[in-house]
């Protein structure tokens, strides 16, 4: 369910963000479906590979996309369990996202390009902060939900949970949103549209990718954004009617709202100085810690 929705709508979400930004900037912007067109066009292109690169460069995007897809299978939709759901799958989600990141890092370094190296350096740097922050966010959610499966967490985060520990959930949601921004190379951490080499992170890593590889990278990025947005939507949209359709739609709406919010932020905020980024990330981590601490009263016994 989620897999389907993700594959279908993830590029749309990217389009939505872009469109929002364009409108805010007073332009008309690309069509919402432009991303799909780009992906298809890229997939049909040939490729140029550097002599420096090895199989790792070619495997990177595929592995990255596989990881994004795998992450998608862990996410539930509208209260129904995800394709893969078991206690602890929250950690697996973190794990596959990290694997995808390492694949991209190594693929970037394989080119021997100074820009790719710089991008990889920054990506790795941010990762050292986002990973604990994400884990803490998930810990906070798991605490409120008394479970460590994404699906169960989503089921549990209904209005009851919100009324019981609204503070914790609000903090966690804020923190999660911050992680989303950082992990997906959004402003204020990175600028997905910039091509000023010295400032970019994610884009610098994929400079040498082209054709189907770039398509995979772009799709993986879109899916990753979708994964985070969907996760965030599960938290901030506490609609749990029990009817899968309604809940699913509510979640989709939440995702869309996240997309709009992203667009709004990117239109109004400037990119942070690099040196300030960790400070913001630490702040996000602190929010998550507070989120865990404020969570529901501890249960007694096993």
């Amino acid at each position, binding site marked *: 369910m989620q897999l389907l929705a993700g594959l279908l709508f993830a590029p749309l979400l990217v389009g939505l963000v872009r469109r929002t930004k364009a409108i805010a900037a007073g332009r008309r912007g690309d069509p919402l479906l432009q991303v799909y067109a780009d992906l298809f066009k890229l997939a049909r292109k040939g490729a140029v590979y550097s002599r420096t690169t090895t199989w790792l460069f070619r495997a990177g*995007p*595929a592995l990255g996309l596989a990881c994004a897809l795998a992450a998608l299978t862990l996410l539930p939709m509208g209260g129904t369990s995800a394709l893969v759901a078991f206690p602890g799958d929250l950690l697996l989600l973190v794990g596959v996202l990290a694997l995808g990141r390492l694949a991209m890092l190594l693929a970037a370094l394989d080119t021997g390009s100074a820009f790719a190296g710089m991008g990889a350096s920054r990506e790795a740097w941010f990762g050292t902060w986002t990973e604990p922050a994400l884990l803490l966010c998930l810990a906070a959610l798991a605490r409120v939900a008394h479970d460590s499966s994404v699906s169960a967490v989503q089921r549990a985060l209904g209005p009851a949970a919100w009324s019981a520990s609204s503070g914790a959930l609000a903090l966690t949601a804020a923190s999660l949103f911050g992680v989303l921004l950082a992990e997906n190379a959004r402003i204020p951490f990175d600028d997905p549209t910039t091509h000023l080499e010295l400032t970019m992170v994610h884009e610098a890593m994929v400079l040498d990718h082209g054709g189907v590889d770039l398509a995979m990278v772009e799709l993986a990025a879109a899916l990753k954004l979708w994964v985070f947005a969907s996760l965030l939507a599960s938290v901030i949209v506490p609609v749990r009617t029990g009817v899968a359709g309604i809940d699913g739609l509510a979640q989709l709406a939440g995702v869309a709202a996240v997309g709009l919010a992203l667009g709004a932020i990117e239109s109004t905020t400037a990119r942070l100085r690099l040196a300030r980024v960790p400070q913001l990330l630490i702040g996000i981590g602190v929010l998550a810690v507070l989120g865990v601490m404020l969570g529901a009263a501890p249960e007694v016994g096993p």
Partner: protein
Amino acid sequence: MTLLLSALLVLIAGGAGALAAWRSERTATALGAGGAVAGAALGLVPALQVLAGMPLATLDLPWSVPGGRLALGVDALSAFFLVPIFAIGATSAVYGSAYLRREAGHHSKAAFWFWFDALLAAMAVVVTARNAVLFLVAWEAMALASYFLIVFHHERAEVRRAGWIYLAATQLGTAFLLAFFAALGRASGSLDFASFAARGSGAGALFALALVGFGTKAGLLPFHVWLPEAHPAAPSPVSALLSAVMIKTGIYGIARTLTWLGPPPQSFGVALLALGIASATGGVLLALGQRDLKRFLAYSSVENVGVIAVGLGLGLLGSSVHAPAVAALGLAAALLQVWGHAIIKALLFLSAGSVLQATGGCDVERLGGLLQRMPLSGAAFAVGAAALCALPPFAGFPAEFAALLASFRGIGYGSLLPFSLVAIAGLGMVGGLAAAGAAKAMGIAFLGEPRSPAAAAAREVKRAMAGTCAGLAAASIVFGIASPVVVRAARPAIELIASAEPGLDSALRGLEALLWRVGGFGAGVLATAATLGLVRRALLREREVRVGPTWDCGYAAPTSRMQYTGASLVQPIIRQFETLLGPTRIEAPPVGPFAAPARLDQRAPDPIGERGFAPLFAAVDSLALRLRWLQSGSTHRYVLFLVLATVAIFFWKRG
């Protein structure tokens, strides 16, 4: 037990045979390496039997030395540690027999194999001894054997220095163990393990002694200083053996200690957790700055041992509040990491050895492009690097998963909340930093363009060496997927450590089920990636695929010197921690109109060594030199001392 004894005999015979055949290098290698492999194979059988649930008779013979008994036993805990000792031992021997052939110099390869086999035998006795004297003898034999292996290249001064640091550190650690065992045996008057009963009072002090003593061998943070010196100095098969297996005997010691001290109070868990988090984060941070591949790996071992300690700590904390789920998950994480890290670190050190032999150096800033030149070794290293970051579906992940899950469960117990939070944040941080480190090790050393002529001229190493690494890489994937088998094997050992906490068993079975799913999921990810690779190939089949230079935003004449260096890759991360690490850069910027050439040195200081131990040693040193006037050569003074001693003692006893 017969099998184990014959394994020990074969090892000793192999080593002695190698020594006896010192005239013929070939015979010595055949006997030494053959003995190691044969002995390990023999020894694996009883270990696996015990893990499969077949109890093994213990050996208990009188021994005339004071307090000693020749008591050997293989219980679940011993067997669990025996398996990596023998498995990695045999692997390293196979690799080493090929590796050593190209090590020039006047070193005695016969002596190498003698000590190698002795080290294996000593480690096997360490984990099976059931008497403290026997244990300590084996423990020291292990230290001696490893010392002689480390100083194999003793014609180099830095190797001798590294060996000395190792020896000093291990001896200081052993001093604590002597105190520990002597104190433990005081109550019962015997040094047999069987008589070490749980004691209410004094357990805390005993545990502290054991923690320092065993922690030194394991390489836990404040006591780790020997590790980054010794492992790079040793020949690579030895580094692999030390890092993958020998430091785990420290973990074994801590685990064994826990079986004697009764139900652990919360403080034990807190101490282990604190040490573990400090080692994990400190280790990985220090690893990041290293230029030397093997030094990097050594610090990474500090990190990984830290993760083991975190697991143990969480397990004990769970035990202390009677939370079997947390206890089971924590301890399982620790034991999973013992095996997982053994595979990963053996793989990485052996691959690093291949790099060393292919290029003559391990400085990442002079490497690069090795994946093209050494495809098999490079691929194996890539797998190892991914496993090092604890990513699914590789060998490091199951332990990370279990440890994090334990912390997630621990959040539910009020008193464990702060500890769980620390563990989650710490492990998350370690994961991110490890990824940066792995990117540096793999990305700078193996990818991109070669940064030196030596790297450019590298060729794939001998098949036996590359094949061993490839086999270990495969093992690391299999381990990541089939880890529940290990949990099952570790179950009785975990029950020993946690002293039969009720509910442990079912929690462990639950973990097994979860890990099957995790493994399956990981396999699925790999399969998906493979499928996508096929899709990609299909898409590209009819398209034009060209090969050119790296685009790099259009630079037409890139040189390898324009690549990002390893130091710059991790520089933003390192700089954040300068307050902890001390200054990492020595800058001499250009000044004035006719500036001298500017300099920028990156260094990777070890704050514990530089600001902790070095001043301590310097203080002892200066105290010693300040007392030298006592021996001034003047007989007048000497007689005066004599008289003063007489006077003093009379005033003391008769005054």
